[in-house]
C-alpha cells in the first residue's frame, strides 16, 4: 500500500531521519513507538508530505509520489497543486485534532469531500451523518468544535479523515493531548477501524493498545528504525537492551 524507500530528513543540515525503509501493506496496522525525539512524528509527517523528505521515495500502491521543495525547504507551490490525488487517499489524524473551529462538526466532515472531491452536498451530508453515528456523535453534528471535549473532537477528526474514503490513515499521537479518562473512547474507535480492515499507521505512546491492535510494531530511535516485528517479537524481546529498557520505562509510566 504505502512504501517508503530510503527516506531522509534533516532540518538545517541536522539529520532527523536517516534512511528509513517502511512497507505498510493493505489492511495492516503498523504502530511506531520509541522515545521522544526519535523522529516518529517527523516520519509520519513526511509520509503525508507535511514535512518534505530531504531524500528518498514514497509510493502509494506502486504509484510514485513526486514532490519538490522550494528555497525555504517547504513543498513547492506546484507540488502542492499536484499532490491532491495523494492527500485525498492518505488520511491524517493529528495530536491536537486541528478541527476547523469556524465550522460546525458536520461542516468539518463535508468540507473535504465537497471542496476537494466535488461530491454533491446531499451525498456528503448523508455519509457524514453515518460516520458521526459510527463515532457516536450524531447529536453533535451542529455544534462547533469548541463546544466539544477533547475526546469528542478527536472522534470528529477521525470521522473527518474517514469522510474522504482514504486508503490509509496516519495517526500522529492521537491520544497524547487527551485527559486520561477520555483516551479510551478514541482508542475504542481506532480498534474498531483496525478490525474492519482499515490500513493504519499509528505513532503512539499507548503500549498496551499498540500491542493489542498492531500487526507490526516499528521501534525507532535517533532517527532510525531499530527494529520491526510483530507485537510478540517486540514485547518479548530479550536481545535488544535499549528496546527492553524503553518498554520497561513505558509500562512503568502506565502504572
Amino acid at each position, binding site marked *: 500500500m504505502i512504501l517508503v524507500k530510503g527516506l531522509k530528513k534533516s532540518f538545517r543540515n541536522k539529520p532527523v531521519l536517516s534512511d528509513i525503509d517502511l512497507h505498510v501493506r493493505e489492511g495492516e496496522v503498523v504502530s511506531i513507538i520509541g522515545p521522544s525525539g526519535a523522529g516518529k512524528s517527523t516520519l509520519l509527517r513526511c509520509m*503525508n508530505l*507535511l514535512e518534505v523528505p530531504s531524500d528518498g521515495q514514497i509510493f502509494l500502491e506502486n504509484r510514485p509520489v513526486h514532490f519538490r521543495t*522550494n*528555497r*525555504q525547504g*517547504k513543498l513547492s*507551490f506546484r507540488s*502542492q*497543486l499536484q*499532490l*491532491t490525488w*495523494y*492527500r*485525498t487517499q*492518505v*488520511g*491524517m489524524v*493529528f495530536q*491536537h*485534532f*486541528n*478541527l*476547523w*473551529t*469556524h465550522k460546525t462538526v458536520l461542516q468539518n466532515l463535508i*468540507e*473535504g469531500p465537497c*471542496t*476537494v*472531491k466535488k461530491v454533491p452536498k446531499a451525498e456528503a451530508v448523508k455519509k457524514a451523518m453515518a460516520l458521526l453515528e459510527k463515532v457516536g456523535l450524531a447529536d453533535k453534528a451542529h455544534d*462547533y468544535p*469548541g*463546544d466539544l471535549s477533547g475526546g469528542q473532537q478527536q472522534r470528529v*477528526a477521525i470521522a*473527518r*479523515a474517514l469522510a*474522504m474514503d482514504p486508503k490509509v490513515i496516519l495517526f500522529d499521537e492521537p491520544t497524547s493531548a487527551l485527559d486520561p479518562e477520555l483516551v479510551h473512547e478514541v482508542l475504542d474507535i481506532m480498534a474498531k477501524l483496525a478490525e474492519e480492515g482499515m490500513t493504519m499507521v499509528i505513532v503512539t505512546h499507548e503500549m498496551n493498545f499498540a500491542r493489542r491492535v498492531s500487526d507490526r510494531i516499528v521501534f525507532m530511535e535517533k532517527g532510525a528504525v531499530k527494529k520491526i516485528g510483530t507485537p510478540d517479537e517486540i514485547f518479548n524481546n530479550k536481545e535488544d537492551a535499549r528496546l527492553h529498557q524503553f518498554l520497561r520505562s513505558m509500562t512503568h509510566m502506565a502504572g
Partner: protein
Amino acid sequence: MNWDIISGYGDMYLQGALTTLKVCLLAIVFSTLLGFFIALMRLSGSRILRGIAFTYVWVFRGIPLMLVLFWLYYAPPFDIMLPAFVAGVVGMSINSASFKSEIIRAGLMSVNKGQLEAAEAIGMNPFQKMFKVRLPQTIRLVIPPYINNCVIMMKESAQVSIITVPDLMMAAQKAYNSTYTVAETLGVAGAVYLTLTSSLMLLQFITEKKLRINKH
C-alpha cells in the same frame, strides 16, 4: 440656530455627503484588495515580492496622505492628468492599503497552523486552503482593527477637499465662508460625519455578532 441657513445649503451638503461616501467606499474596496495582495506578498516565499511589499508599506505608511493627494493631482507621474475625484480615490487607496495590509497580515498569521495543516492533509490546494479555511478565520480576527481603520479613512477623506473634490468638507467650508456661522455649517457637517462613521461602527457591531462562533 438658524434653520434657514441649513436648508439653504441642504442640497450642497447632501451632494457633498454622497461624494464623501463614494470616495470612501471606493477607497475601502480598493485598499482592501490591494492590502490583501500586499499582505500575501509579505508572507510569500519570494524575497523580491517580500521586498516590494515591505518597501510599499514603509513608504506609504510613513508619508502624509495629503502629500500623496497633492502629488497625484498637481504633479502626477508620467503627466497622466487625473480628475480630482479619481486622484482622491487613488490617493486614499494607496495610503490606506499600507495600513490595511498590516492588519490583514496580522490576521493571516494568527490563524492556527494546525488547521492549515489539516486543510493541506485533506487534499486542499493552496487556493482552497486560503478561501475555505484561512480567510474565513482571518476575517473574524481582523474586524475590530479593520473597521477602526475604515473609520479613520472616512475622517481623513476630508483632505480630498484640498484637491478640489466637492465633498462634505468642501461644502462645509463654502457654507462657512459665506455665512460665518459655525453651528449651522461646520456643526452640521460634523454631525453628518458622525452619522457616517457611526454607521461603520454599527456595521462592526452587526458583523461581529453575526460571525461569532459560539452563539449562546
